[in-house]
């Protein structure tokens, strides 16, 4: 467990740890046996796709099997397709899964017609390691004037973006060059932990911004507030304000593609074991989480908690078969004995959440509305949309109310309701 520090306001805060001074070369996880690729469109019947079980694919090969959709995957391995099946994801987002049995020889398929344009980027890199948010670029209704290359990780103990910005600076430099040419953004800024602020002079970035070490100030909205002096209005996003955040890893992936002519398929993943020890590894996209843990020597047992992401904002998994995706920055294992449970107390109004909240939400009041299912009132009266999803309120809650879960659910429900309303308006 990390050390708990006291901030000026008296609230408990955490600090983001830095990786060791010279990050060790990450352990590469290989001989994975099987990889699973996910395509952003769900398959309904096998005849829909022009791929079949038994087909062979090469590393870096682009697979766009739907006749009526541009959805694609870049194969992260060389081998034979062993299964094709629908794959349900969270929040109603569904995929097609391709299981690939990895062959002994790794054969790299080069890519064609690579230009420094948005179109080329979208053709190959939508699900590249770090998941560059390419959909944000090139929208005339919502122009992006600044691309922020983020070398900070939003969750605690996660060191993936930090690792990328420390070890892949040449690829990032190239990536910035490509993005500048392709995106039409005026500026590129690099955001790094305050203590790593030097050594980015030759990257071609126009600005360098220091992010304070206190959790959760690496969160994009808070970076804008603190480092850029931009307060994002409650219902708006960073993109609405003209800023697009790209993880350092995703920019490095772009750079590597243009430097080598191959799409990178290795994902940097921070592993956090039961004692809070951190280890950075690289693994092919599509590697099952269980394989990575095994290869890194991290044991799991019944009733542990397995988490994609970090301790404050990650997602708990129910099995180890889930695979590493473009945005899987961390995998954490928590011992059964450390799993804290919620209670069924109501709020006692102790005010700890109010002191902890970085965005000054009256969480004690908000939670009353959310518990009663009054999401709209909660949003109107007590600033639901100012929340930046840091989870600190739940972390400190004396009554152990799953506050952050209520908040996520409320945002999800309100988004669903307004999507339904918009759809019926259009008819």
């Amino acid at each position, binding site marked *: 467990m990390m050390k708990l520090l006291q901030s000026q306001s008296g609230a408990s805060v955490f600090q983001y740890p830095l990786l060791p001074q010279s990050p060790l070369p990450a352990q590469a996880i290989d001989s994975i046996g099987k990889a699973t690729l996910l395509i952003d469109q769900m398959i309904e019947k096998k005849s829909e796709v022009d791929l079949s079980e038994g087909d062979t694919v090469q590393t870096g090969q682009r697979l766009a099997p739907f006749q009526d959709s541009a959805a694609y995957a870049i194969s992260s391995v060389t081998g034979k397709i062993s299964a094709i099946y629908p794959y349900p994801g969270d929040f109603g987002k569904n995929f097609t899964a391709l299981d690939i049995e990895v062959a002994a020889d790794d054969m790299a398929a080069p890519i064609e017609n690579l230009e420094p344009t948005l179109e080329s980027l979208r053709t190959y890199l939508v699900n590249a390691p770090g998941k560059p948010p390419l959909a944000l670029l090139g929208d005339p209704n919502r122009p992006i004037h600044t691309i922020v290359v983020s070398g900070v990780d939003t969750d605690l103990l996660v060191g993936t973006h930090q690792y990328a910005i420390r070890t892949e600076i040449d690829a990032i430099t190239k990536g910035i060059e490509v993005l500048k040419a392709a995106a039409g953004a005026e500026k590129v800024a690099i955001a790094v932990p305050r203590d790593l602020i030097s050594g980015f002079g030759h990257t071609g970035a126009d600005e360098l911004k220091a992010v304070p070490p206190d959790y959760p100030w690496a969160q994009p909205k808070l970076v804008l507030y603190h480092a850029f002096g931009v307060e994002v209005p409650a219902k708006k996003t960073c993109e609405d304000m003209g800023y697009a955040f790209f993880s350092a890893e995703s920019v490095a992936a772009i750079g590597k593609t243009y430097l080598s002519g191959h799409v990178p398929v290795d994902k940097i993943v921070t592993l956090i074991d039961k004692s809070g020890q951190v280890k950075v590894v690289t693994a092919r996209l599509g590697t099952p989480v269980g394989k990575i843990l095994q290869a890194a020597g991290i044991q799991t047992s019944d009733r542990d908690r397995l988490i994609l992401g970090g301790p404050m904002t990650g997602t708990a998994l129910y*099995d180890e078969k889930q695979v590493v995706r473009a945005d899987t920055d961390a995998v954490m294992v928590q011992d059964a004995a450390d799993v804290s449970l919620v209670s069924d107390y109501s709020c006692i109004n102790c005010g700890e959440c109010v002191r902890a909240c970085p965005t000054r939400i*009256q969480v004690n009041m908000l939670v009353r509305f959310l518990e009663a299912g009054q999401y709209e009132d909660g949003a109107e009266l007590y600033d639901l949309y100012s929340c930046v999803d840091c989870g600190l309120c739940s972390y400190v809650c*004396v009554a152990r109310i799953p506050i952050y879960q209520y908040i996520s659910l409320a945002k999800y429900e309100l988004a669903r309701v307004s999507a339904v309303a918009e759809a019926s308006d259009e008819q």
Partner: protein
Amino acid sequence: MSSKKMFIVSHAPFWHNRSNIPERCYGMIWAAMPAVALGIVQYGLPAAGVVFLAVGTAILAEWLMNRLTKRTATITDGNAALLGLLFAMLIPATTPWWVVMVGTLLTVVIGLHVFGGMGANPFHPVAVSMMMLTVSWPAFMDFNAALVNYELSFNAVFPLSLSKNLGTAAVAGFTPLDLLLGQQTGGIGSTFGLGLIGGGLYLMAKRYIRWEISLSFLAGIYMTALVFHMAAPDQYAGPLFHLLTGYTLVGAFFLLPDNASSPVNPIPMLIYGAGAGFLAMLIRNIGSYHDGVLLAVLLMNLVNPLLDKIRPKALGKVA
């Protein structure tokens, strides 16, 4: 990789700072122990009897209310025991057993559960029951009448009634040291100044209470008493006397900072505390009660929801 492994699935965050409600309640009980212990030493078995009866009755009442409202049993979390204890701390050691029981029942049932249980009470439950008893049976709540049969080594007249009726000269015998060491009459757990201050420091350090409230209350008492004293030194006792007598200290650390009935934002906490101190002194010096702390607590509880509307602007709020 075994496929039989089951993982625990829940929503983020996966860490918690391990604070919890029982820890807070028992922390409050511990903090009250020195003051209660001195009360028992001074008043002997009857005081111990009152304390045990109140705590027992409170736990029983909580259990009955849990049954009645079909909620999870909460008697082990310490909150009911704490309320019983706080009630006992405010009353004289000679209070008849049935008054103790009625008072405790009022505390737990009317003060707490009628409003929806812990966290939902708009007033401090003990302040509510104490005011009801004061109105219904003033005789039992009068320290001079109640403690008349005790042989004590110090002036056995309740200091606040002395100062109120006879002025500053009458309380000259109470040195601050006497008061700090509990050489005064009063509620079982309300007179040991040093013990209460120690308990309060512990509670503030543990953040079980909000220090802004306690300290601004004490400042409010001090400043208001000082102004009165300077205006008419013979009639109104000095600020130190008022800080160390009556329910000032027990109110500052155990009643006023009650989570549910007090504000959580910085400026409201200061107004709330200072306001209570000011009101308590007004009542003591020109009102009809000897002590004004309980009434001041209730009055400030009443305005608490309004006060907490003074709040910082949330990030990104457009208004």
